[in-house]
C-alpha cells in the first residue's frame, strides 16, 4: 500500500512537532486528501499554527498565513492590482490566498466582508479581482482558526459560510505530560525547522485522486443519507444538515478509508467522522441549550439510534 505509507509519513512528520494530537493530525490529513478545508476552533496557543506549518512543510507546499484583524480588507486576502508606471499597466500582486496551504488565523475577528472573500475563494478554488478570474494553484487547503464564540470582539461566521468547511476540529489543551514533552522538545531548538517534505505536491494530487476511487457501497450511501435525514428530524435540531453535508461525509469517509489503507468505506469511518462533519452544520434549538445538551451529544445520540446496515438489501 503505497498510498498508506505516504499518508503515514505525513502524519509522522506532523507528530514530530505536535505532541499527543495524532487524531487531529489525521483528521487534518483526511480533509487535505478529501480536498476540503478545516475549521479549527480553539483558544490561542495550543499549536494550531504549528500543525499547519508542519503539514505544509511535509508536503513541500507553499505556506501562507493571514492574520485576520477587524480592519483587514478583502484585497489584503485576495491580492491587489497596482499600476506599474514602467509597464503602463496594472500589475496583479497576488494575495496570501493564492498559496497551497493557507492558515487563516482568527477568522472570526474580521468583518463579514473579508470573511466572505476568503470563503468564496475556498469554495470556487479561484479568485476574481477586477474582472479577472485567477485559479488558485492546486492543492489548495485552508485551515481557518477561530476563537470560541464566547470571546468578545468576534464576528461569528454565518451558518452558510460554515458549510464550506469540511471538518470542524477542536484541539484542546495537551495533557500535562504531553505539555512537558512539548517543553522538552523546544528547550534547545525548534523541531519545525528540521522538518523535510516527505511527499511531493504531485504525489499529493495523485492521492487526492485516489480518494475518489475508494468504494462507497450502496449500504453505506444509505447509511449516510439515513444519518443526514435524522438530523433534519431530531427534536433538538432546528436546522439539519444539507445534502452538501452528506457529500462531505462521504468524501471525508473515503479519505479516512484511504488513510486506514482500505479501498472501501465502512460504517466505522462514517461514525467516526460524523461529528466533525456535521457538528458545525446543525443549528440546535434553544431547548437543547436549556437542557444543557451540546451538538456533539445530539449527534452521538443519532449515531446510536441509527441502525448500521449489516446486510445487503434483498431487493438488490
Amino acid at each position: 500500500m503505497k498510498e498508506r505509507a505516504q499518508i503515514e509519513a505525513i502524519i509522522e512528520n506532523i507528530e514530530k512537532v505536535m505532541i499527543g494530537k495524532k487524531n487531529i493530525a489525521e483528521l487534518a490529513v483526511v480533509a487535505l486528501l478529501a480536498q476540503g478545508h478545516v475549521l479549527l476552533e480553539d483558544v490561542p496557543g495550543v499549536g494550531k499554527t504549528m500543525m499547519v506549518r508542519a503539514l505544509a512543510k511535509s508536503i513541500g507546499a507553499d505556506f501562507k498565513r493571514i492574520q485576520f484583524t477587524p480592519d483587514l480588507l478583502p484585497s489584503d486576502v485576495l491580492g491587489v492590482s497596482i499600476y506599474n508606471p514602467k509597464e503602463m499597466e496594472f500589475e496583479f500582486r497576488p494575495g496570501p490566498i493564492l498559496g497551497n496551504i493557507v492558515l487563516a488565523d482568527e477568522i472570526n475577528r474580521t468583518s463579514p466582508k473579508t470573511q466572505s472573500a476568503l470563503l468564496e475563494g475556498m469554495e470556487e478554488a479561484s479568485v476574481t479581482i477586477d474582472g479577472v478570474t485567477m485559479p488558485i494553484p492546486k492543492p489548495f487547503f485552508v485551515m481557518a482558526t477561530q476563537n470560541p464564540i464566547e470571546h468578545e470582539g468576534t464576528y461569528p461566521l454565518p451558518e452558510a459560510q460554515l458549510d464550506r468547511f469540511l471538518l470542524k476540529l477542536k484541539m484542546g489543551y495537551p495533557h500535562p505530560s504531553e505539555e512537558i514533552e512539548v517543553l522538552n522538545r523546544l528547550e534547545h531548538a525548534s523541531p519545525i525547522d528540521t522538518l523535510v517534505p516527505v511527499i511531493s505536491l504531485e504525489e499529493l494530487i495523485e492521492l487526492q485522486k485516489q480518494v475518489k476511487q475508494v468504494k462507497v457501497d450502496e449500504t453505506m450511501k444509505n447509511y449516510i443519507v439515513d444519518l443526514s435525514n435524522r438530523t433534519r428530524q431530531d427534536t433538538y435540531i432546528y436546522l439539519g444538515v444539507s445534502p452538501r453535508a452528506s457529500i462531505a461525509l462521504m468524501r471525508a469517509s473515503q479519505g479516512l478509508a484511504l488513510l486506514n489503507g482500505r479501498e472501501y468505506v465502512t460504517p466505522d469511518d462514517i461514525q467516526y467522522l460524523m461529528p466533525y462533519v456535521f457538528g458545525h452544520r446543525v443549528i440546535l434549538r434553544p431547548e437543547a441549550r436549556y437542557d444543557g445538551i451540546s451538538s456533539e451529544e445530539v449527534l452521538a445520540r443519532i449515531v446510536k439510534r441509527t441502525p448500521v446496515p449489516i446486510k445487503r438489501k434483498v431487493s438488490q
Partner: protein
Amino acid sequence: MSKKTQQTIISVFVYSFVLILMMEWLKPVIELTDTGHLNLFGWYLVISFVFYLLKLKWVYVFPIKLVYICWVIVNIYTDLSILSVESFKLILEMFKENIASLISQDWVQVTDPFRTFLFFILLWMTTYLLNYWIRVRKNLMLFFLFTVLFITILDTFSPYSGEKSIVIVLTSGFIILGLLYAQKMIHEQEGKLHGAFLIAGIGSLTGIVVISSSLAYALPKAGPSWPDPVPFLLSTSPNAANGDDGKGVRGATQKVGYGENDERLGGAFASDDTPVFYATTPTKQYWKIETKDTYTSKGWINSAPETPVLRGYELGEPIESDIAPGTEDESLKASIYMSQAYSFIMQPYGIEQVDSMEPIYLSMNERNQKLYTFNGGNETPVGTYDVTYNEPLYSLKALRETVPADLEGLPSELDRYLQLPETLPTRVKDLATSITSDSDSLYDKAKAIERYFRLNGFSYNQDMAAVPEGDTDYVDQFLFDTKIGYCDNFSTSMVVLLRSKGIPARWVKGFASGEVVERENGLPVYEVTNNNAHSWVEAYFPGIGWMTFEPTIGFTNSVNLNYDIDTEKDQLETPESTPEKTTEKPKGEKEDKEVSIGFSEIMSNIAKWVNNNKASIFWTILGLALLSMFAYHHRRKWLAKVLIPVNRMRKNDWDTFEKMYHQLLKQLDGYGMAREQGQTLSAYAKYVDAGFGETHMRKLTAAYEKGLYGNNREGIDYVSMRESWENLINQLSG
C-alpha cells in the same frame, strides 16, 4: 495459599460430594437388581475419583483399576487368591468365552463375572464423564438434574424408597454447583482469592444449603396435589379394561416355579431365581416334566385314570416314550445335577435312557409322561443323573402332506387330547377356523395358530395376567379381552385352538433351557431356575406323531426339522410342471389377502388402541410438549450442535459465509452479547472478542465487512473462517 492450592481444596470437596451423588445412583441399582457388594463398587468409585483428583496419568490408573476389578471378580465368584495362576486363567477364560458370546450377540450366554466386569466398565465411563464435567466444563447441572429425576422416578415406580436419598442428593448437588461456580470464579480471576474469602465462601455456601435443606425438610408439607400415578397408569392398561365386574381382577401374586396344581391358572407371578437344577448338555433345549390333557375352562387337570398306568424301567434300560428319539445323528448325553429335591426326571425330547449312580429305578406314568424316580417302592428324589437323548427329527415334506381327512381314523386313546369344556364360547372355535382356514396341511394349520399370537398384538407379561372370574373362560378372556399374559395363557390357548380344529393336542409343563453359567469340559452348563418354569404345546399329527410348538412370545424352542431340501428345490424350480402347482397358487392368493386384511386390521387396531390409551396418549403429548418447551428454552445449548454439522455440509462460498455470520450474530444475541443497532460490526467484534479473550470474531468480521462494504469477496479463506466460526459457536453453547 496459592491459587492452585485453593483450586485443589475446592476440588477435594467437589469430588467428595460427587462421590456421594454417585453412591446414590449405585445404591438403588444394587438394591433393585439384587447385586450386592455395594462396598466393593463404592471403593472402586473412591479409587477412581482419587485418581482423577491426583490427575494421575492413565498408564498408572489403567493397570491399578484393572487389577482391582479382577480382584473383585475373583473374590466374589471364587475362593481363589488373586495371585494364583488359576485365577489368572479364570479371568482369561472369562474374557475368551464372553467376548465370543458378545460377538455372536448371545446375550443370555454372558456369565455373571463378565457382567460384573461390564458394570465396572460402565462405572469407569461414568466417572470419566463426571471428571470431564468437573474439570473441563465446570458444570454438573445436567448430572445433578438426572440424579434427582432418577431417584424420584425410582421412588415413585419401584419398591426403592428414595426418601433419605433425595435429601442427600439435593444437598450435595447444590453444594457441588456452588463449589464449581467458585472454582470458575477463581479460574477467571487474574489474581487469587483471599484465603479468608475462600473459606468464608465455602463455609457460607455449605451453611446456606444445609440450613435451607433442613428447613425445607422440617417444614410441614402439603400432601401431593396429584394422586399417585402408578395405580392410575395401571388402570388405563388394557388388562384392567376387561374387568367384567371391576373387582379384584388380579389374584394374589404367586411364586413362579414348578407346581403340581394347575386347576386355576392366571394371576401375577413374582420372579424367583432359585436354581432348580444344572444341566451340562451339548444342546440347548426344553426340559419336559409332564403333560396334562383336560382343560377345565379355568386351568388344567389330568383326566382321572382309575389307576395310573405305570411302567417301570431300570437305569440304563431304553425308555419308550410316545415321542420317538431321532435316529440320524449320534445320541447325546446331558448330565443333570438337581439343586432341589424332585422325584422325577427332567426329560429332554428324544429321551433314550437314564443313568445314575444312585440306587433308583424309574417309572413312567403313561397318562402324563411323567418319569418318576423310585427307591424301594417310594418316590425318591434323585441328586445327579445322566440322560441320553437323540432329538426327534421330523420331515417337513411329511408334515406338509398331513391333511384334515387323516384325522378321521384316529385311535380312540387320543380322544382325551381332543377334550374341550362344553362352556367354551363358540367365538374361540370360530377364531380357530378363521386362523387356519388358509392352511391346507395340519402342520401349517398348527403353525398358523402358533404364529397367530405374535402377529396380532398379544404381549408377554408376568404381572398383568388376569384370573378369569365367574363364568369367564380362561382362554376366551386371553384371546379376546386381555391379550396379555405369560406362557400358560399362550400354551393353553394354542391347545384349545388346535383341539377346536380337531387336532389332538396336550399341554406340556417343564422348564425352559435356562442360562449358561459356566463351562465344563467344553460343554455349557445351564442353570435352570424357578424363573425358567414354562409350559408349551404338543400336537399330534397322524402318521407323524407328537411334535412340540412354542406359541409364547419371547420364547423359542427349535424343532429338529428335515427340510427335505431336494424335493423343496424341485418344487421351487419347476412350479408349473409339478402337481404342487394347485397348492402353490392359493398360497399366493392367501398372501395378498393377508396383506389387505392386515391393513384394515391395522387401521382398526390403531383406532382401538387410541381409544384404550387415551390417558397415556394425553400424558405422552403433555410430556412431549414439556420436552419441546425445555428444548426450546435450551436451544442455545443444542442448536450449536446442529448448526455446525449442517453448515459443514454447505459449500465454502460467500453465501454460506454470510449465512453463518448472521447465525453467529443471532447466537451471540441469545448468549447475552447483543449488538446495539447503532454499533458497527467491527466495534461489536472487538466487544465480543474482549469477552472471550480471542480474535475470532474480529477475523470473521473483517472478512465479512470486506465482502459486504468493499464487495471484495476474493481471497477469503473460508476454511479458516469456518474454524473460527465453529470455535465461537462452541464457546457459545458451552
